[in-house]
């Protein structure tokens, strides 16, 4: 049961625990941030994965990203700068700001609520469920029981 709870809480923990710890090396950061943004040419692809030939935007944006990392801003600052320049759709997933928090919190919250609800429902059902006789009912004749056993033997 504890395992259930722990696993159920994981998504919440992760969402709440989105922290940026330490500074990864430049290439890893480039790769990481490149995956957190979209190409703005309308191809609906992740920036670093945009691969269509002659894309008017992705090369330029990736160059901007490289110089931004070299310029020494934090990840959040870079993302915010890109957002200011290209609009909020450039981020591959909304940041944890204002209404956007809702995007992140609702699904895990609903799952946790659902789990809690199911637990309570099951508890209620168990209380209401008539305790079935766990012993053989005497009203059933031995002959009938034999017949059933014969039919259902493996």
């Amino acid at each position: 049961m504890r395992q259930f709870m722990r696993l159920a809480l994981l998504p919440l923990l992760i969402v709440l625990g989105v922290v940026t710890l330490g500074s990864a090396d430049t290439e890893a950061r480039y790769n990481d941030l490149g995956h957190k943004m979209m190409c703005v040419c309308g191809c609906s692809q992740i920036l670093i994965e945009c691969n269509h030939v002659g894309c008017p935007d992705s090369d330029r944006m990736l160059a901007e990203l490289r110089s931004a990392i070299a310029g020494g801003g934090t990840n959040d600052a870079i993302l915010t700068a890109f957002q200011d320049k290209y609009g909020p759709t450039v981020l591959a997933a909304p940041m944890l700001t204002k209404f956007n928090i809702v995007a992140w919190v609702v699904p895990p919250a609903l799952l946790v609520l659902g789990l809690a609800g199911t637990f309570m429902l099951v508890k209620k059902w168990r209380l209401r469920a008539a305790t079935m006789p766990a012993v053989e009912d005497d009203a059933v004749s031995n002959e009938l029981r034999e017949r059933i056993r014969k039919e259902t033997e493996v």
Partner: protein
Amino acid sequence: MPAFGSFALLVALALSGYNLLAGAVALRQLATGRRSWISPEKLAETARRAGIASFFATACAAFALVWAAFTNDFSVAYITEHSNRALPAAYKFAALWSGQEGSLLLWAFLLSAYGFVLRARHKVDVKLTAYASTILAGIQVFFLLLVNVAATPFSLVTGAVPPDGNGLNPLLQYPEMVIHPPMLYLGYVGFSVPFAFALGALMMRYPGEKWIHITRRWTMVTWLFLTVGIFLGMHWAYSVLGWGGYWGWDPVENASLMPWLTGTAFLHSVMMQEKRGMMKSWNVWLIFSTFMLAILGTLLTRSGLVSSVHAFAQSAIGTWFWVFLVIVLAVCLFTYILQRDHLKTEHKLESLVSRESSFLFNNLVLLAACFTVLWGTLFPVLSEYVQGNRVTVSAPFYNRVAVPIGVFLLFLTGIGPLLAWRSTSMRSIRKNFVLPATVGLVVAIAIIPLGVHPWTIFTTDGQGAFYAWITFAMAAAVLTAISAEFFRGARVIQGKSGQNLLMSMVELTRRNTRRYGGYIVHFGIVLIFIGISGQAFNQSHEQTMNYKQSFMLGPYRVECLDYSQDSNPNYDTEFALLNVYRGDHFVTKLAPELRVYAASQQPSTIVANHSTLVADLYVIYAGKDPATGQPVIKAFLNPLVAWIWIGLIVTIFGTGIALAPNLSAAIAAQRHRAAVPAEPVPAGRAGN
């Protein structure tokens, strides 16, 4: 021919309309006992036949469109837009579903084909089938209205007939694209059948749960089609789009995933109803939702409500789908409210630790996953409404939110089958869980030195490795649990028949195909999970390459042997020839390509992929360096991707087994006849 196609569609609409009306009137008369000048049975029979005939009419229309494609009839606007003379024959056939009008026609055709089978086999249960057939006719009317009025595939071009067509989108010129859409549509459309049966059973207050038995195969076949459709789409994305991945969380992909998730939930929870008479309302709503999600998916992607890479999709047809969806919802709600007392459960849940409750949690998690996908797909629209600007909700969101749910689901896959129906005691838990848990733990520890580091969860972007670690460990546990089930069962058979263990396992599976087929499906799904986890360890490298130049990626050294270009009537191509070495050992030759199609002037990459069980070396020709003319090569090392496709094959195999009839049922029936030879055949049996 286009005129014939149009006419056939009109006939099909009339026939379906008649099926709906006459069927409804007949059922109403039978239900109320009111008679008119024609007996309701006869009226119902004409309705059924109209349904069957509508299949032939729709087939004629589909044939007419394919014929127009093959004969290069560019007087048809649709053919001009989606085909051209140089297009290979197989792709001309695929023109039927490469545009909106054609795919709606295909949808209508598949629906009537399902309807045909259902109506032809009406003797299974005449009354229930009559209800289902009438409901299905209603759905048919909607799609036939669409192709007759809103998105007509046979419209003629205005002005002079063009000498050649615009050609098929080159991205779609790939063998899998010929079968991916029909598979997906077979899946979407197929859910109409269990939906129609469920709604029909509720309308007629069908006694007992036999209707589930009748629809079981339909649901499983549909589920299989949808699964295969989704995975073919993934494989196509992986092999054709050339961005190194197989799932981009695009709205169209999401739209196919949602009914899959609820359909999977339905497949599981319906077992509780069949075996224990529980969860009736829940199941009815699950199948209602699955059907509505299939429609909603189409609506989302076709109305332009959410933007998608599937460019052909956007049009004003969304309104039609909205109206249809509202009607469906209203009918479902109305029927449910009217008949809900029919859905009282016979049993209540008796324990939190039981097979039933594991199904309950499985359902909950599948629905949570479905909701997450729906939420992510719709959030941009919501955001625009609330805060005035659109946002993007893409891979990073789903990786954070949906992946943990997936891991939880994997956990339930493992424990569910080990729990007993009704209630499981602690002793039983110890008995069944020790082995899988131990194996899981051992694997969890053993893979740490191999580079799967769970503590990366505390770093910036390291959740992937952490989830991969959990997934691998849990996959090991689940595979052990499944194997143990087979092993234990086989031992019993072995004890009785004296066959060897392997033969006993075969017999075990044949005696209860649904259960053991289901386990094989779980096996496949676990393999797929393992394959997906490999993503956490992807690597990539991009470089402009001259002759004899090389780079390292993982264990491989990729060396440029040559690069050149070529032309044929359908496309121009540029390509590079690369030698791949592992150490000093030659592995393979790869030839990534970049094609520019003549008719559409659209470029398309042809991926070169060297796939092994450990990893795929996936190489694309990203373009030419404008200064030197040398090719830019982008290479990905994607671990474990092959496991996904193997898992799919296992899943297909398992579903096939689950569809096969039980050996034990046949044996039991035989024994039953032998035991009670003198039992008279009761009068009421004929109808079943």
